[in-house]
């Protein structure tokens, strides 16, 4: 990848010294880029490697020896399996609701001109920029003042809330390039609005919706800060990791972290490959 072609042919102007300087600079950038990527990958490698560690005591800090024991029974430690199950349930419900609500908002924003458009954009934008701790804390004060019992459903409500804006932004980005003539063509050929929506519009915007849903799911399953404020005694996977961090994190946590990473990477790679296939050569 370091030999990737220049966008334009390089100019060989000037003396050998300037050419040498250009060569050094060119490769300095490549060297820095590779180094920065290595830095980004380092903790990921550590997580994966330590999922095979055989820790001597409670602390999975130093490399002691290779074992696949944690991979054979990743949900072994007490409460870990339940926490993962809760996380997946929350993420599924939150993703479903946030994707539907967010897609509808995105369609309204892209396809219609209406009063209150600016205010709507603002309302979508602000949750994206507010610090998570403020989002979590303010929701907690709502539930405290209303006397709502904290637990599974308050977590779900919180997750839907912070996922909506991300879905809107993602789906909107994909909707902008949508060619409405195809819909008009369907209508001209006698399809009613529902048929047009189901047979034409939906399949065309499906990749955008899917991207929004995947983003919502990964945000939900990863969220710790907002969840910690609204969970009561319910434990999600990140909450389990947090409390385990005080007394030594079992290596099984690394196994599950690696699994989540693996699934996400496979989905993302599939998405990238899909884009390569859909995009004509040279237009990327």
């Amino acid at each position, binding site marked *: 990848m370091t030999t990737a072609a220049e966008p334009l042919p390089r100019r060989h102007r000037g003396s050998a010294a300037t050419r040498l300087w250009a060569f050094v600079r060119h490769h300095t950038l490549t060297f820095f880029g590779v180094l920065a990527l290595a830095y980004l990958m380092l903790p990921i490698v550590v997580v994966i490697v330590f999922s095979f560690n055989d820790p001597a005591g409670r602390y999975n800090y130093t490399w002691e020896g290779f074992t696949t024991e944690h991979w054979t029974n990743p949900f072994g430690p007490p409460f870990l399996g339940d926490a993962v199950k809760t996380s997946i349930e929350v993420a599924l419900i939150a993703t479903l609701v946030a994707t539907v609500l967010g897609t509808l908002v995105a369609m309204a924003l892209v396809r219609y001109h*209406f009063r209150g458009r600016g205010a709507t954009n603002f309302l979508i934008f602000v949750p994206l920029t507010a610090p998570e701790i403020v989002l979590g804390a303010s929701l907690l004060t709502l539930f405290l003042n209303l006397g709502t019992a904290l637990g599974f459903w308050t977590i779900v409500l919180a997750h839907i809330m912070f996922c909506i804006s991300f879905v809107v932004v993602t789906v909107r980005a994909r909707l902008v390039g949508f060619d409405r003539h195809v819909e008009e063509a369907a209508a001209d050929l006698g399809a009613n609005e529902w048929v047009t929506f189901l047979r034409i519009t939906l399949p065309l915007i499906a990749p955008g919706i899917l991207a929004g849903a995947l983003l919502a799911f990964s945000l939900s399953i990863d969220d710790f800060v907002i969840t910690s404020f609204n969970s009561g005694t319910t434990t999600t996977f990140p909450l389990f990791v947090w409390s385990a961090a005080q007394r030594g994190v079992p290596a099984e946590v690394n196994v599950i972290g690696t699994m*989540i990473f693996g699934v996400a*990477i496979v989905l993302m790679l599939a998405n990238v490959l899909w884009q390569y296939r859909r995009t004509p050569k040279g237009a990327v």
Partner: protein
Amino acid sequence: MSFLHRHSWLTPYLLLAPGIAFLVLFFVVPLYYLGYTSLQEGTVQVGYTFNWAWDNYTSAFSTYREQFFRSLQYAGIATILALLISYPLTYWIAFRGGRWKNLLLLFIIAPFFVTYLIRTLAWQNILADDGFVVGVLQALGIVADDGRLLATSTAVIAGITYNFLPFMALPLYVALEQIDPRLIEAAKDLYSSSTKAFLRVTLPLSMPGVIAGTLLTFIPAAGDFINAELLGTPNQAMIGNVIQSKFLEITDYGQAAAMSVILMAVILLLIAVYTRILGTERMAG
């Protein structure tokens, strides 16, 4: 649908209604309750009453001034570091990535796919006292022989930089990728040096990305408490740590809410000043 047809002006509002109602109920209304709670006094035992307790604000600020300023300081340093790392990296991908661009971009967002807490715990391993990083730095004399990285402000800032770097890199990449390389080529044709072409063409054109990236990095960094908790000690506590423990451990809701409001206000103020200096139009898009 025939109803929609007759009242087509209603359609956008019907599409918006559920999502916007949800955001109003669970984002706007809670902010009101945050302000309301910040003026309450009381304890878990006797309950909390609203009595315009402005005292919560003055005492929160005077007691935790240190943590406030530390948060802004750590977040500021981490933002600058993230910019210094991300700019060359995304420049490299945008201009030299060729057909590998999307794949290289995947490397930048890959850390997001490892649970936040787990990747921060990985930094515990990396920076541990008997880890190789400390060993190398000790051998080089950068860290004293009895010195350490874990439980220092260096570790906390390093953790924050790492965790929020993708927020910097992605908008930067988008801005750099949109720059037409022919513009830089044109500058060089007009006898501009590479440095000058960068300063006069590339850098100004990438400013929207720099602005968006620094804001998207600084804001969550200033409110973060996970890095200070897992990589630091109480001596590195940030305002997020105080808010978190006041809400969830000490149940001093009034003061905790007041601190959240101050944090939000400081951040909004900084955004306003920052965008005023660097130009606002580009923000909205």
